[in-house]
Structure formats: C-alpha cells, structure tokens
C-alpha cells in the first residue's frame, strides 16, 4: 500500500516537474533546473558526508571544474554538449582522484582545509588563465542541448537518476562499507573493509556528481564566470546536505529546495534576504538536527517489516563450518613507549574448543587480542592460522584470513540496519557481489537475535548489539572467532544464553577465543584457560586447574596483607547516603537499585568482579554520569542531580580509575588543581603532601606523564586530598602497580583512616582493601549482593564473586 502510494506520488511529481519545465515561463523551469543541479551536487556530497562521514568545503571547486569543462570543450574545442558533458565529468573525476592522494591523508578539519584550498586554487586558475577560461569576464555562449525548459528537464532527469543511484549505492556493498567505516572504523576493518579504497571512492564519486552538476549548470545558464562559483557555494552545498538530512536519499533534494526556493521567496526583501536566510538556517538546525529528511522519517517510520521466510539455521551452520584452523601465537610481544604490555605470550586456540584469556585489569588481555587480530603489530613473535603466518597482516586482511573478532565495547555499525550489519560481514570487504539476505537472517537467528532485522543497529538494546556483532563476525565465515568481553553488561539469563551460543559455535568447529571477566561464564564453558598478569602468561590449563593455582589467586586478590583494623570502630553520623541508585551509559543500564550508607570517618570497601558496576557507581556518585535515578545525599544535601564540578565542590572527591593525572602538567600544577574548590589554599599544603608521599618531592616540577605508575597514583591521591574532601573515593588505586608500591599506598590509606578521613575504596586487591575497611559491600550484576564486616566478607564468598563458582 505504502509503496504503491509512494510510486503514485513520485509519478505525479515527475509529471508536475515536466509540466513546469515545458509549459510555464522560463523562470520556473530555470529555477527547477537550478534546484536540480544544486541537488545533484548535494547528492554527491551526501555520498561523502552522509555515507563516508567526511566534510568537504571545496565542492564548489568541483562544480566549477565541471562547468568550465563543458564551457571550454563546447566553446573552444568545438565539441557538442553531449560529447563535452561526459568528458568534463571524466576530467573532474580524474582530478579528484589525484587530489584524493593528499586529501585522504588527512581527516576532519584538516581535510576541510585541503578542500577549501583546492576550491580557491580552482577559482584563481579560472581567473588567471583567460585564454582558456575567459578570465573574470567569463565564458559566454555555451550551447544548451535544448531550450531553457528542455535543459531544465534534462537536469531534473539527471537529478532523478542521481537520487536512484544514491538509493542503490547506499544499499550496495560499497555504500554499506562507506557507512560502516564512518560509524565504526575498527569494526569495518575487522570485516575486511579497506579504508583507503572506500574513502577514495566516496571522494571521487562526490566530485564527479559535483562536476556533472556544474556541466549541466553551464548549459542551463549559457554563461559562466569565476563569480558564478563563489566560496559561499561550497558552504551552501554542505548546508544542503546537513539541513536536508545527511545519509538520507531525499536529504539533498529537500535541502536544495530550501536553499534554492527560500531565497527566491525572500527575493523581495532585497538586502535583508541573507539576514533572514541566515536566521532561518539556524532555526532549522536547532529544530531538526538530523536534517529534515531525518525528522520526516521519524514521523513516517514504517510500521511493520515484511513477513520473512523462516530462517534456515542449517544454512547458517553450514556457512560457519567451512573454514578450519587453529590460532597460534608464539612469543608475541609489544611495548608502548617503554611499557611492556604483552611480554612474549604463547597460546594456541584449537578448532572445536573455547580458549579463554583471563587476568586482572591491565594484564594485557585486550592488547593480546589486538596483536592477534591485526590491530596492533607485535614487536616480536609470530601469529598463525593453521599453517598461514598472519603476523603483521593489517586488520582488514584478517577477515580474508578467516579470523573474525568482536570488540570490548560492542561496535555495530550504528547507522545501518541489523540485516545490513550482517550482510556487510558476508561481503568480507568485497566491492561487488550479492550479500544474501536470507543467509544474514539465518545467522541472526543462529545467534539468538529475535528483534526486527530492519531496525538501525544504533537503536538496539545492549544485548542485541552484542548478538548483532557476533552474527556479523560469523558472517565472514571465520575459522577463528575472537570475543572481547562479550558478557559485559549482560544479565544472568542473557549471559547463560551467550555461553550456550559459544559452546554451539565451538561444537560447529570454530576456534573460539574468549576474553572475559565474568568468571562463572569462563569457568563453565572454557575448555582451556590462559591467565595473564602484567603481560605474562602465569598459568594455563582447565578451569579446575586454574581455579586452584595459587599464583592466579594472588594476581586477583593480592597477597594477603597484615592484620586488619585492630578494633572495630564506631561509625559517625551518616555522611554519604545512596538510595535506590540506578544508572548506566545510554542504552546500557549498569546499576540497578543500589543503596549504601557511609558514616563520617568510616572506611568502606567496595568489591565485585569486573563488570559488576563498581566504576560506574563511582562515576555516578561523582557526577560524571548524569542523569541518574534514585538519590545521593552528602551531609544531608541532595547531590544526585548536580554535575561533576558541583559535586566535587561540595566535597565528594573521586580519585578516578587509571589515575587520570594531567600528563603534561607538572606535579606541582596537578596538586594545585586538586585544591580548586577551596579558596583558602596555601602553597605550604603542598609541602604536607610531599611529606605524606616523599617519592613525589624530587619530581615536583616534572611533567606528571613522566612519573611511574605508582608515583602517578600517589599524585592522584595527594591531588584528591588537597581538595580537603568530605569523602574521598578511591577507584582501583592498586591497578597495574607492583606489590611493594601497593603496600606503600595502602599504608597511607590506613594513616588517612586513622586521621579520621571518610574513605570509599574500590580495589581488586581485596585483601588490601579488607585490611583497612570498617565495612564492605559486594556488587554483582549492578546490585548489592552482600555487605558486612571484613571478616564476614573475607573468604569463600569473595572468591566466588571474583573467580566464579566451581559448578
């Protein structure tokens, strides 16, 4: 019904356009012609901006080139219009291909500048080469193929063709690849898309369309001069796409209608026209930030996708059981600026088995994954699939080498439909070819995705993003599948389903490599576990073996520390109260109804496995995540709606995970910044911090980025203390530090406790944290699962939370 209606509307629109061109006075036809040329150039820019996500401010230069091409070839070389037009477009395409060599080395504002410069060069050349271009006086007498009406109709036909081509391009392998690259470059490479080819194609297509528009404009106006193509035209073209709706087929048409017709409607305002025009643009930008086509699409969202054939799961299984091969890493090693992230690790992932890589934060798990999947080049060592050496392959060659991966933060192509995400995987970076939608649907069914296949992946809930990402990886028909924390953010039921899926995939013959923090998942499905710590393999074996390995326990829980607090202290009046707190990141809900209380002078430890929501809780408390549900009160004052700077001002200070010192500022400057909330800061207080952390003294005027990890952590704590906090929150202070340094830090925390500071400590080294805490809470799956005194928490329950149950 809707399709039929759309066809009828389109047919009537075409008839109306033809009627206007052929039957009305020249002005209306000419205006339609101008609209069509503007839209045509806009369609080209839409390929670059809407599909490939790059900004060009030099499209006017290509329009001018096309116009001069036709103008010169007809008036100077004596060709007729039909010969000149394709030649001119070819010339523009060739020039843009040459320009793409420098242009595509840069991106963002730098690319914008290259295109601006190009536009000005074109303008200058057209002025300074009068023998060829007619100079500033321009070229007159450019022949048109028909009269004004006919030529206008011709441009409209080209424009229509452009719209149809864009529609199909956006859905073709190369169009999908452009969009994929724009929304998630790393993921696009992981399914085999080469960045250079995709960006060059978008750039040249955009230029060719602009050149065609210029050639048609030359014929329509019969006269061109450098002043016909001012710099403002390039900005206007960008506007056409942005206002119309980047990425939408009809966007440039709607945008040009506004940019061409609005000034005409305002023509009688004469000199006030641009003023009103500018203001109107601002209003449209405010009202419809996704462009008008985007806003319309929201209104006219399709109600129901077509009924689809029942997915053929056998076909999907057959698709993924084609390639076979084990993944072997031998002595792979990489260092970043002197810090060794992975120090010579060996591992083999065999077909039909699930091999898991675990280890505390900062152990080098993700880096190892990147080394094996081509996102990072190892300094030493080899990586092989079966017999093929793939060391140093770039990421986009990996898909063809039968290796697929997913990412720590799910990276679906948010601006593509679920189905297209998977189809792109099927293409493995090929430019042409048919990506079988039925197979894609079958793969989605295989991974257990049950939502709509036409939905944009960006609109999916978290769990579905994971599934789509896995289906996309499977679509490349890999022998080896690498998964980076697939269970992060999933609830128990979804995690169990995921576990089942991975086991099925392994049974189908894939070599599955799993990096995961959810220990119950890892322990229940893995055939083999590799344990990393500080870039080294410290253990390997079956789940049972690894669970009972003392070095693994030490890596996770820290070596047992000296005795806990000698006396049980009485808590002061409640200082920080959290009640029913729920929070998350966009689609991803992490915290679910968390409540806790901290009395003045109390030390509270917060435990839980990675992904349990500890850091999220810290961010929510400190105001880095807003808005949140539930209440947070500090000393009776509601701070749940305050942004981070005001939360800090009221005295709730977070020493964030990973230190977060300002690397290029000196230690002294970092310290001074800590006291920002106070008006009574005096330099002498820095001295007291140097007494507390004597290691900082010789580094006082060194850039903080040059400090060792331990020194940076001390700096971060000292910086927090200088705020004179009401409550000091420490997020993973021991992360990545040597045991001796960790002990030193926790001694300082103990001293702070004795001085009466209220502390909230999150640390993986549970024993350290328990040693100084008055009370503790255990988080699991975003909820408080246990609380109590250190002695109550110590022991089996904590082991369970970290290393998973033995089941």
């Amino acid at each position, binding site marked *: 019904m809707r399709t039929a209606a759309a066809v009828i509307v389109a047919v009537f629109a075409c008839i109306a356009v033809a009627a206007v061109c052929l039957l009305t006075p020249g002005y209306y036809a000419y205006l339609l012609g101008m609209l069509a040329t503007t839209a045509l150039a806009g369609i080209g820019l839409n390929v670059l901006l809407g599909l490939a996500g790059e900004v060009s401010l030099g499209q006017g230069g290509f329009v001018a080139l096309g116009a001069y091409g036709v103008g010169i070839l007809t008036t100077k070389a004596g060709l007729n219009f039909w010969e000149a037009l394709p030649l001119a477009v070819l010339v523009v395409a060739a020039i843009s291909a040459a320009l793409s060599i420098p242009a595509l080395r840069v991106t963002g504002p730098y690319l914008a500048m290259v295109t601006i*410069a190009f536009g000005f060069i074109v303008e200058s050349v057209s002025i300074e080469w009068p023998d060829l271009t007619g100079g500033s006086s321009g070229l007159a007498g450019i022949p048109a193929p028909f009269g004004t009406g006919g030529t206008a109709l011709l441009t409209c036909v080209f424009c229509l063709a452009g719209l149809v081509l864009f529609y199909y391009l956006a859905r073709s392998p190369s169009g999908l690849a452009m969009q994929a690259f724009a929304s998630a470059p790393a993921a696009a490479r992981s399914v085999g898309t080469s960045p250079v080819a995709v960006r060059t194609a978008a750039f040249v297509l955009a230029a060719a369309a602009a050149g065609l528009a210029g050639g048609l404009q030359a014929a329509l106006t019969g006269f061109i001069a450098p002043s016909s193509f001012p*710099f403002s035209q390039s900005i206007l073209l960008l506007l056409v796409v942005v206002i119309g709706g980047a990425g939408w087929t009809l966007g440039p048409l709607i945008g040009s209608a506004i940019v061409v017709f609005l000034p005409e409607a305002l023509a009688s305002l004469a000199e006030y026209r641009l003023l009103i025009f500018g203001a109107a643009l601002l209003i449209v930008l405010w009202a419809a930030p996704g462009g008008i086509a985007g806003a319309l699409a929201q209104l006219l969202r399709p109600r129901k996708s077509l009924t689809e054939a029942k997915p053929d799961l056998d076909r999907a299984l057959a698709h993924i059981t084609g390639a076979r091969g084990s993944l072997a890493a031998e002595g792979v090693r990489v260092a970043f600026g002197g810090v060794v992230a992975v120090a010579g690790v060996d591992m083999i992932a065999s077909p039909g088995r699930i091999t898991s890589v675990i280890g505390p934060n900062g152990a080098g798990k993700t880096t190892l994954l990147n080394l094996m999947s081509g996102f990072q080049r190892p300094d030493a060592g080899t990586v092989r699939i079966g017999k093929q050496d793939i060391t140093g392959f770039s990421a986009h060659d990996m898909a063809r080498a039968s290796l697929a991966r997913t990412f720590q933060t799910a990276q679906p192509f948010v601006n593509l439909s679920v189905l297209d995400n998977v189809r792109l995987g099927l293409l493995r970076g090929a430019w042409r070819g048919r990506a079988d939608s039925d197979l894609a649907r079958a793969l989605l069914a295989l991974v257990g995705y049950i939502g709509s296949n036409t939905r944009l992946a960006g609109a999916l809930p978290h769990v579905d993003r994971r599934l789509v990402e896995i289906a996309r990886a499977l679509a490349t028909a890999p022998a080896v599948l690498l998964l980076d924390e697939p269970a992060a953010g999933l609830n128990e039921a979804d995690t169990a389903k995921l576990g089942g899926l991975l086991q099925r995939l392994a049974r189908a013959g894939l070599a599955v490599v799993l990096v995961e923090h959810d220990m119950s998942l890892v322990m229940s499905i893995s055939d083999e576990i590799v344990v990393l710590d500080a870039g080294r393999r410290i253990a390997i074996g079956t789940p049972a073996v690894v669970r009972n390995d003392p070095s693994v326990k030490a890596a996770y829980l820290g070596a047992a520390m000296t005795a806990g607090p000698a006396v049980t202290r009485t808590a002061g009046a409640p200082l920080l109260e959290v009640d029913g707190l729920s929070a998350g990141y966009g689609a991803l809900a992490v915290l679910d109804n968390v409540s806790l209380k901290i009395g003045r002078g109390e030390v509270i430890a917060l435990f839980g496995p990675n992904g349990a929501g500890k850091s999220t809780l810290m961010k929510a408390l400190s105001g880095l995540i807003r808005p949140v549900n539930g209440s947070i009160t500090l000393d009776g004052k509601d701070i749940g709606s305050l942004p981070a700077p005001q939360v800090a001002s009221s005295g709730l200070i977070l020493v964030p995970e990973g230190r977060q010192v300002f690397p290029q500022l000196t230690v002294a400057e970092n310290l001074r910044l800590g006291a920002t909330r106070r008006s009574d800061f005096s330099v002498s207080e820095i001295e007291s911090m140097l007494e507390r952390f004597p290691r900082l003294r010789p580094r006082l005027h060194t850039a903080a980025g040059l400090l060792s990890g331990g020194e940076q952590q001390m700096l971060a704590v000292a910086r927090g203390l200088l705020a004179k906090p009401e409550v000091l929150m420490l997020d993973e202070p021991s992360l990545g530090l040597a045991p001796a340094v960790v002990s030193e830090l926790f001694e300082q925390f103990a001293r702070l406790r004795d001085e009466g500071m209220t502390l909230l400590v999150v640390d993986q080294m549970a024993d350290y944290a328990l040693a100084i805490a008055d009370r503790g809470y255990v988080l699991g799956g975003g909820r408080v699962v246990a609380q109590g005194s250190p002695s109550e928490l110590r022991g089996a329950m904590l082991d369970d939370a970290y290393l998973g149950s033995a089941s």
Partner: protein
Amino acid sequence: MLATALVSGLSLGSIYGLIALGFTLTFAVSGTVNFAQGSSVMLGAVICYALAMGLHWPMLIAVPLALVGCAIWGLIVERIAVRPFVARGSNAWLIATVALGIVLDNVVMVVFGKEPRALPSSLADDPWVIGTVGIFPLQVVVPIVGLALALAVHLGMHRTGLGLKLRAAVENPDAARLMSIDVTMLIAFTYAAAALLAGIGGILIAPLYNVAYDMGTLFGIKAFAVAILGGLTNPWGVVIAGLGYGLVEACATTWLGSSSTQIVTFSVVIAALVLAPSGLFGGRTKVRV
C-alpha cells in the same frame, strides 16, 4: 624588493596568527571552532569605529568597549551555535557558526551601512621611509602586539590559575571536572577570548585597511588555514605559521606576480598538510582501537 616583502608579509602574517590563536583556544578545549571567526574581526573594528568616529569617544574608551563587545559576541556564539549541537553530539556547529556569522555580517550591513569607512590613526599616516621601502609605524606595532599577545596567551596559560584549569581541561576534561573545574564555563570563556583576539586583530588592521561589514571574511579563511598549518592546538606553532603564511603570500606576489598569489599560498597549504597531516607543529594524532 625583499625588504618590502618582509615588511608587508610579517605585519599581515602576525594579524593572521592573532586571529588564528582564537581557533587554537577553542579547539584545544572543546574540539570546536567558530567558523565565522572573521565576523568577530569585523565586529571589533566596527564597534571601535562606531564609538570613536560616530560618537567621538576617545580611543582609550572605544577600544576596551569594542573588545568587551567582541567577548560578549563570543559567548553568544558558543551559547547558541555551538553548545546546543555539541550537547546532541552533532557536528552541525560547523554550519551553525557559519549561519550565525551570516546573520551578524548582515545585521552590521543594515546598521552600519554597506560602505567601507576609514578609522584613521596617527600611527598609519606618516610612514618611515628608508630608500624605496616605507613602513607605517602601526605596521611595526602590529607584529609586536601580535607577539605580545601570543606571549600573554602563553603566560596566561602557564602562569595563572585560570590557565592551569584550561590546560587541565584540555588534557583530560573528565578529570578536570572531578577537580570542580566547570569545563562548560571554560569553553564559553575560550569562545569569548577567541572573539576578543579576533577583535584586537580587527582594530589593529582597521587603520591600515578600512572598516566594512564584510572585512572579516578573507581574514577568517586565511586565519583558519594558518591555524590548521600551525597544528590547531599549538599556540606558538600557530603564530609561526601565521608569519610564514604572510611571508609566502608577500613573496609570491613580489616575485611571481599577484596573479599567482592565491594559487601559490593555497598549494603550499595543501603540500604542507600532505607532509604533516596534523599541521606543521601539531601533536601526533593518538590512535586507539
């Protein structure tokens, strides 16, 4: 001829650098720029003209008031053309700032008039002449002020509490917010400062040039090129790039003729970006997967 090219190139180049400094400030803190920076150049000159020539107020009052006007304009730009779009994760601020620039240019056209006016200065009337090379005293003042302001920006960034906060916000906005630094306000402040620098540029160039509602456009584009060449985040790089750009422009005109000026300068821009994709003095782009 060399002397002429040097004098002309350095004095114009320091103006470009001054305006480009504004791009640097806002880009470093917020990753956005006012693409209509040229309009701020114009606004400074026009307000100064209106107060000094229209109302006959002394320069000592006119100049500070003009700069206050520019700063307020910077705040307006940030508030209505940048913040709403950045908050939605949209990069439409690029077009929005251009649109707002169009609005300002045309409001000024209606209010101030279409005709260029002169803002006379005793520093731009009586040249110092050595042989065939002459120079207005103001042309010496301009680079000095330019370098002094670059130095002031540098000192302000490195010697004041506000500068410290700015640098902190540049390096790690989230951590800065944890230090109770209001990054949103800092961004607004950088927009005000950027417009102020542009306004100073406008007031400095006005006596050598003229005051018109559309005087800023070309300065804005060239300053953007300079900012990009300088690496967008490096204030000294931008100042040096400004001087270099001015010199290339003047030398191209002097030895190759005026018809090649634009072709040469913009080709140099492209070539420089090919060799140094994030500007001549920009930091290496950080790549993370």
